[in-house]
Structures are given as structure tokens and as C-alpha cells.
């Protein structure tokens, strides 16, 4: 069959576009509806995170980490405090560890709900998105109850937490989990198994494992490509080594391994695993304990550097901290997972139709706040 080639057109998707999840500009070359080349332009949300960090003390960095990935602020805090504790050799209580894990996993559920919902929204399904926001709202309620803030928490501090759990938190969390578990099945029936959704996402934007590793893609996107790689298992931090959970990987049920549907599916499965982790963490949570006990009076890490990775909902979140022995970081670099995930877009999405490119972009689950920092 002959292919008709028209004139090439350059089209700017963004910076103001409903499907770019923030302020991202994709300059695409199109041939009709087929997109032949994608050049992302970043930086519209650049807020000089790293430069700021060189001017504030180590405690004051934490509110800034919140604002990088505003959909998973707890995980951002978590990564930073783990890095600082590794650098300063601080050992924190079990209670603190498990509270942190509960918070991080709740945040993972919240973040994945939004990721999956927005993916559906990019494909035109509005209702699942709002159902997922509804449940995410309850997670935010739990966070608000704990630390008073709904989105930007500044909750985890080096060596401890800003607040202990309030009374009734455990009951509320368990109540939420009981309510939430059947809802996951409903999401899967309403969105994931819908034939139109499957047609739109299966076999689209296939990312083979080698490509994913070469491009530094991590987290659910890498696992969807069939690579069993989860820092919670492979380089355990905090108390994750004491918890029992599985790492879901993409297996190409509806199409090829590593397609957009697998990326959706891995996230849904991870939500289920997170529920499991939270239940275990609640069981293991010591009843008593001072969450401020291990907090150093003044944070002055020894001279040296550390690269520490944690598993944020979007993948390997790395902090490179160079300390010169003062209370102000000499250099602090955040290796953001969404940054590398966006880098792979041209490789996996060029050659597809316009609708597919935006679907693939949605399935990668990028947050521009974290990419641009």
C-alpha cells in the first residue's frame, strides 16, 4: 500500500495545552496526523531549586523538596531525609520508620491514582479521573490530619518527623483502606478493561527494557518494561526490608511488554501492593516512641558527599549532597525520575499519531515541577 506524504508542519504542543501536565512545550514535526519528531523544551517551571539549596540550611531545604514533585511531596521529603541520615549516620526509631513508610505509601497511592486518572483523561475518559481524585482527596485528608497541610507537608525531618500521629489516625487509615480496596477493582473495570481504552493504550509506545535502562527510565515505567527493579527491594532503605510485598512487572497481557497499557497496569498493581504495605506497617508500628528523639540539635553533616536513592512514585529519586561541614549544603542535586522519563519520549513516541503521542506522554506520568525543579 502506498503512503502519501504531505508537507511537514511544525506544531507546538504547549506550553499551554491541556495534555502536557504542567508547562511543557513539545515541538513536533507532523506529517498529517503522524508525528515524526518530538523535541521537548523544558524550563518553564524552573524555580532554581538547586541554587536555592546552596543558600538555605539543611532543614530549610525540606520545604523546597516538597515543591519539586508536588504530587508526591512525602516521597520527596522521604528521599531527602534518608540521604541526610545516611550522610550523618543517624539511626531513627522504628516508630518513625514505620510512620514514614505509611505516609510514603499513602502518597504513592495518591500519586498513582492521579497518574492513572490523568492518563484516562488524556484518552478522553473523564469520570474515572474524578473518581480517583475523590479517593485521593481522602488520602489528603489523612495527611492534613497528621501535619496540617494537604499538599506540601514538610513532614519528615532529618532524624524524625514534625508531628507524631494524631489520635484516631490508624483507625481512619484502616477505614480508608477498607473503603478503598474494592474501588481499585472498580477503576480497573471502568477504565482498564474498557475495550476502547485497551485499543488506545495496548501496543502503543512500546518501551523495550534495554531502551528503558539506556535512557535511565526508572520506577513503574521501567517495571512495565518487564524489569524487576524496585529500590524498596533491591537497595532497601528505611524499614522496607522488613515488609513483605511483591514488585509488579509488566507482562503484556493486552499487547506487548512495555506498552502504555502495561504502564497503567503496573501502577494499578502497585496501588494494591501499597495497601498491603500500609497494613503491615500499621501492624508493626510501635505504640510508643518519641518522633523527635533522633533529631540532631543542629544539622552539620561531616565533610563529604553522598548519592542516595529512594523509590518515589515516579521512580528512582536520587539526591546528591556535597557537604563542606557547614550547616548549608555546598551542592545539592536532585536526580528526578520524571526528567529521564521525559527524555525517552522522542524515542518511543515518534512515528505515532498525535493522539497516541499524548497518550504515551500521559502514560509516562511526568510532573513538570520535578523535571524543571
Amino acid at each position, binding site marked *: 500500500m502506498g503512503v502519501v506524504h504531505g508537507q511537514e508542519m511544525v506544531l507546538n504542543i504547549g506550553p499551554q495545552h491541556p495534555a502536557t501536565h504542567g508547562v511543557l512545550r513539545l515541538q513536533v514535526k507532523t506529517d498529517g496526523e503522524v508525528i515524526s519528531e518530538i523535541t521537548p523544551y523544558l524550563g518553564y517551571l524552573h524555580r532554581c531549586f538547586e541554587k536555592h539549596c546552596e543558600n538555605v540550611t539543611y532543614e530549610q531545604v525540606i520545604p*523546597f523538596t516538597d515543591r519539586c514533585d508536588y504530587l508526591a511531596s512525602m516521597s520527596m521529603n522521604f528521599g531527602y531525609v534518608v540521604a541526610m541520615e545516611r550522610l550523618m549516620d543517624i539511626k531513627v526509631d522504628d516508630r518513625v520508620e514505620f510512620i514514614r513508610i505509611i505516609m510514603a505509601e499513602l502518597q504513592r497511592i495518591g500519586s498513582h491514582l492521579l497518574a492513572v486518572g490523568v492518563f484516562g483523561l488524556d484518552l478522553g475518559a473523564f*469520570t474515572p479521573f474524578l473518581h480517583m481524585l475523590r479517593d485521593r482527596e481522602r488520602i489528603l485528608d489523612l495527611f492534613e490530619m497528621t*501535619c496540617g497541610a494537604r499538599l506540601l507537608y514538610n513532614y519528615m525531618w532529618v532524624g524524625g518527623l514534625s508531628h507524631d500521629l494524631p489520635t*484516631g489516625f490508624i483507625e481512619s487509615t484502616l477505614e480508608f483502606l477498607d473503603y478503598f480496596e474494592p474501588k481499585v477493582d472498580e477503576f480497573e473495570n471502568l477504565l482498564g478493561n*474498557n*475495550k476502547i481504552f485497551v485499543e488506545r493504550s495496548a501496543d502503543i509506545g512500546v518501551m523495550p527494557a534495554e531502551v528503558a535502562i539506556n535512557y535511565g527510565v526508572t520506577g513503574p515505567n521501567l517495571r512495565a518494561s518487564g524489569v524487576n527493579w524496585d529500590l524498596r527491594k533491591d537497595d532497601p532503605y528505611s524499614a522496607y526490608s522488613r515488609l513483605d510485598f511483591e514488585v509488579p512487572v509488566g507482562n503484556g497481557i493486552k499487547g506487548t511488554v512495555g506498552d502504555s497499557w502495561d504502564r497503567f497496569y503496573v501502577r494499578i498493581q502497585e496501588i494494591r501492593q501499597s495497601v498491603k504495605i500500609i497494613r503491615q506497617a500499621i501492624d508493626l508500628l510501635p505504640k510508643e516512641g518519641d518522633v523527635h528523639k533522633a533529631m540532631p540539635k543542629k544539622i552539620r553533616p561531616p565533610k563529604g558527599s553522598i548519592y542516595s536513592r529512594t523509590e518515589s512514585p515516579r521512580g528512582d529519586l536520587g539526591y546528591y549532597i556535597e557537604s563542606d561541614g557547614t550547616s548549608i549544603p555546598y551542592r545539592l542535586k536532585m536526580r528526578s525520575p520524571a526528567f529521564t522519563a521525559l527524555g525517552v519520549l522522542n524515542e518511543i513516541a515518534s512515528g505515532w499519531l498525535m493522539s497516541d503521542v499524548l497518550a504515551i506522554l500521559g502514560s509516562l506520568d511526568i510532573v513538570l515541577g520535578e523535571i524543571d525543579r
Partner: protein
Amino acid sequence: MSTYFKDIYETVTSILGGMGITIMHLFKARNDNVTLQYPEEKWPRPERNIGFDHGSYNVIRSRLHVDMDDCIGCLKCERACPVDCIKIVTEKSPARGEDLKDIKHKGITSNGTKKALVVTRFDIDMSECCYCNLCTYPCPEECIFMTGGPNSKKHPIDYEFSEPDRSDLIYRFAKPGSKEGLEKMNQAKDGGE
């Protein structure tokens, strides 16, 4: 050919399944709805049971408030602020630990600390505040706090604050006229000597 009919079958069943779910939500709308009718209903929501005990729910981060009577001008909050939205200017008190009636200055805090300084300027730019709560922890007198925080009995939760002008969001907590008043007092003192 069989995949052709299988596809059609799957499409029809999955669409009908999805429609079933949405129509169930439509019929259960009255019980399931999660909307907060904002101006009438406010957080904490009065009627619907959200599973929390509102009594223990007292850490909402709202706007910052300072009890000037307790402030000793130690500048710890100013140093803790990551975005530099607090600005404090202090001057030495003519009489340590004593009330200065002219400028409504209280000499002793509610914790019993004697104040050596008069705070002549205590500005917080709420339009820059990032609500990180870092300023409230170092305070030795617990006089700066988010409303709805630990002192929520004194100050109600208040998260709806808007101003027509941005400069109105700079809250000035220092007692008005305290700078001039202090100058006058010092002058009078100098003159007296």
C-alpha cells in the same frame, strides 16, 4: 474472523460493564456525593461523617499569627524562615521586664520571661509564606503559630483570607506607634538626665 467477532463482543460487553458502573453511581448520587458546598459548608464538615474526630483535629496550617505580648524578639523565627518572609526589628527596652504603658508593651511573657527588647517591627508577608511551619518550632515562648495550630482555642481556624491589595497581605504585628513611642521615651529620659 474469530478475532473480529471476539473484538466486537469484548467491545460491547466492556462498554456495557462500564455503563453499568456509571449508572450505579448515578443512582447512588445522593449517598455517595463528596462535594463540599463551600460557602455554606466549611471544613471541618459538619454533617457527613468523614471518620475523623474533629476535636483532635487541630493542626491545620492556616495563616501565621503572633501574640505580641509574648514575643521577646529573639529573631529565631526570622532565621528559620526559608523564604525570608518575616522581618523583625527590635530595640532595647528602657526598663527590662517592666510594662511600658505608653506603647502598650508588656514586660513579662505568659511563660514568665522578662523581656529585654521592644519589638518595633514584626512583619510577615503572607503572600510569600510557604506554610512550612518551620518558624513555629524554634519559638521559645510559643508565640508565633499557625492559626488552627496548638493555640486553636484562642484563635479559630481561618483559611479564607483574601485582600484586594497585595500589600494588605503584609501583616504588621508590632504594636502601632511603638517605634515613635520608644524614641519619645528615650528622648524624655535623655532630657531628664
